[in-house]
């Protein structure tokens, strides 16, 4: 086991990792920018090193500074948390070359899963369904028509060079396809200087379902169940829950099976999350794999009773998993609300000084935060300031707990997403469980 771990992150996830280390008896080194000198993660760690100015590029993304900090403190491993360097294959490689263990998968796995088209091919070859569409870019209108006929309408035309919602068009039926193709092609040409186009099936109002997997370096791979992360705004998750209120037990097992098969086929070793879109017909499609610990790992911890960060550290140190798939039992229901320092309806960041703080408590409540009274929420970093997680015997109890806990949660001095969470929890769509990735945007129009 490692003797000392450097945590190359800040905020709640840095504290989360320090807590796991303390419970494992491992010494910790916090790194921080000059702006984070008084942060809780610096106070909670055994040692701390200032690695640069407030800007992330010069501090939390500053590879030489972080490696140097590990070297001068004799840390034998680095935990990257999420964001920052967590899925940076080059950083993982530098760690390796400096004989510092990177707590995560191999650089090669990070690299292969980081390239989305590559990840899609890997998933396909491991037998997972992927969104059907053209093999590469479209050569002709006839090809587009024949593929669309095969995969059924509606389909989506996408500019290869597009992204962030630009250079896309949904086509509902064959007669519209030819002209839509012309339009997207010319848009793409003028917008991106590349008029190549591909076509895939358009998934209407899907759920975002992800499977938490865990694999050690002794060939053991297992699934820790699903998470429903469909409450999103601009692809940012806001509420996550497990088990998904809509998935049948058989779909859950089937999807989990694909996630495990993918990890097994590529020889993956660490925690990982395999993400799927799940549509109204119960069909599902692999979209990507995240090779890091995720913000929402907490709900999986609540229902499995496992400490995923500890397991991640144990796996990185070469230990064998101490249990098998059969030992994993899901108890009750868990929901997480991400409390962001944002205007709850405009979503504009709202940094500031915390003037008051009341953290909810009692049975089934977990809070992960780096806030304290008079701490500063800074504009340099992401706006997530607290995670509120509840665990109930069933979804109804978890919902009641979340409502209760949100009503107790007071963060003075900044605007937060707490009022929005109460709105979402009060919406019929959320209560029914039949919500999807478009639900929040539509709810916002009604508020």
């Amino acid at each position, binding site marked *: 086991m490692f003797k000392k771990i450097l945590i190359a992150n800040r905020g709640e996830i840095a504290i989360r990792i320090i807590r796991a280390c303390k419970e494992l008896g491992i*010494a910790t080194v916090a790194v921080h920018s*000059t702006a984070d000198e*008084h942060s*809780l993660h610096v*106070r*909670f*760690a*055994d*040692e*701390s*090193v*200032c*690695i*640069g*100015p407030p800007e992330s590029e010069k*501090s939390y993304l500053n590879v*030489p*500074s*972080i*490696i*140097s*900090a590990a*070297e*001068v*403190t004799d840390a034998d491993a680095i935990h990257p948390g999420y964001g920052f360097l967590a899925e940076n294959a080059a950083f993982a490689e530098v760690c390796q070359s*400096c004989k510092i263990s990177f707590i995560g998968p191999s650089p090669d796995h990070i690299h292969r899963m980081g390239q989305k088209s590559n990840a899609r091919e890997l998933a396909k070859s491991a037998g997972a369904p992927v969104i059907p569409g053209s093999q590469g870019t479209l050569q002709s209108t006839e090809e587009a028509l024949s593929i669309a006929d095969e995969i059924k309408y509606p389909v989506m035309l996408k500019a290869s060079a597009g992204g962030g919602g630009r250079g896309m068009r949904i086509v509902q039926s064959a007669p519209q396809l030819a002209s839509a193709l012309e339009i997207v092609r010319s848009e793409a040409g003028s917008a991106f200087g590349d008029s190549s186009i591909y076509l895939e099936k358009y998934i209407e109002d899907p759920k975002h379902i992800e499977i938490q997997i865990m694999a050690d370096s002794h060939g053991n791979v297992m699934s820790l169940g699903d998470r429903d992360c469909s409450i999103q705004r601009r692809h940012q998750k806001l509420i996550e829950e497990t088990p998904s209120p809509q998935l049948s037990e058989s779909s859950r097992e089937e999807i989990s099976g694909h996630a495990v098969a993918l990890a097994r086929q590529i020889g993956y070793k660490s925690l990982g999350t395999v993400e799927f879109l799940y549509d109204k017909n119960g069909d599902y499609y692999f979209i990507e794999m995240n090779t890091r610990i995720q913000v929402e790992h907490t709900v999986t911890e609540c229902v499995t009773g496992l400490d995923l960060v500890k397991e991640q550290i144990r796996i990185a140190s070469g230990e064998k998993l101490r249990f098998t798939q059969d030992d994993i039992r899901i108890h009750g229901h868990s929901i997480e609300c991400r409390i962001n320092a944002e205007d709850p309806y405009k979503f504009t960041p709202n940094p*500031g*000084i915390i003037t008051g703080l009341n953290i909810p408590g009692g049975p089934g409540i977990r809070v992960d935060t780096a806030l*304290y*009274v*008079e*701490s500063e929420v800074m504009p340099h970093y992401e706006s997530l300031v607290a995670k509120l997680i509840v665990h109930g015997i069933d979804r109804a109890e978890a919902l009641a707990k979340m409502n209760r806990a949100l009503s107790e949660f007071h963060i003075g*001095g900044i605007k937060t997403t707490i009022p929005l969470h109460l709105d979402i929890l009060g919406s019929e769509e959320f209560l029914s469980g039949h919500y999807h990735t478009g639900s929040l945007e539509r709810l916002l129009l009604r508020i």
Partner: protein
Amino acid sequence: MNLSEIKKLIRIFENSGIAEIEVEQEGLRVLMKKEARIERQIVHIQPEASIAPEASITPEASITPEPPVAKTASSSSSAPMAGTAESSGKATAGGHIVKAPMVGTFFRAPSPTSPPFVEEGDIVRPGQSLCVIEAMKLMNEIESDVEGRVVSIFPENGKPVEFDMPLFEIEPR
């Protein structure tokens, strides 16, 4: 009330909805006003009280961002950094400070057998090497950015330094 407390009061005042505040205590009077729409603060500090540290009216602890938790004894004693609060405090009192631009190990000489780049009392010119910081097996030479006399060398040879830590105090001339 010391300068940092006044700075804090300014921030509190800025974020408040009020237009004017005046605080007077033991010979120190602070008056702040917001101008209609322009939102500018005017701070009047009576000269005799403003600088003197004994003008502080409240226990330090009540204002300074109070640590929500105390570090354990073992943690502070195991802190590996060469610089201390005292040294950086001392540093800010006097001349020009050369700070560490990166994390690494501080060496006063280019190699273990060479003489140090500079000694206290030496005169240095801009661009002259003062030390090296080893980071990721690379020796990074740190140069003086002013002309002057080296008054203090803060870290010990061979000790780690963190970003922004004071290395040298140079009296410019």
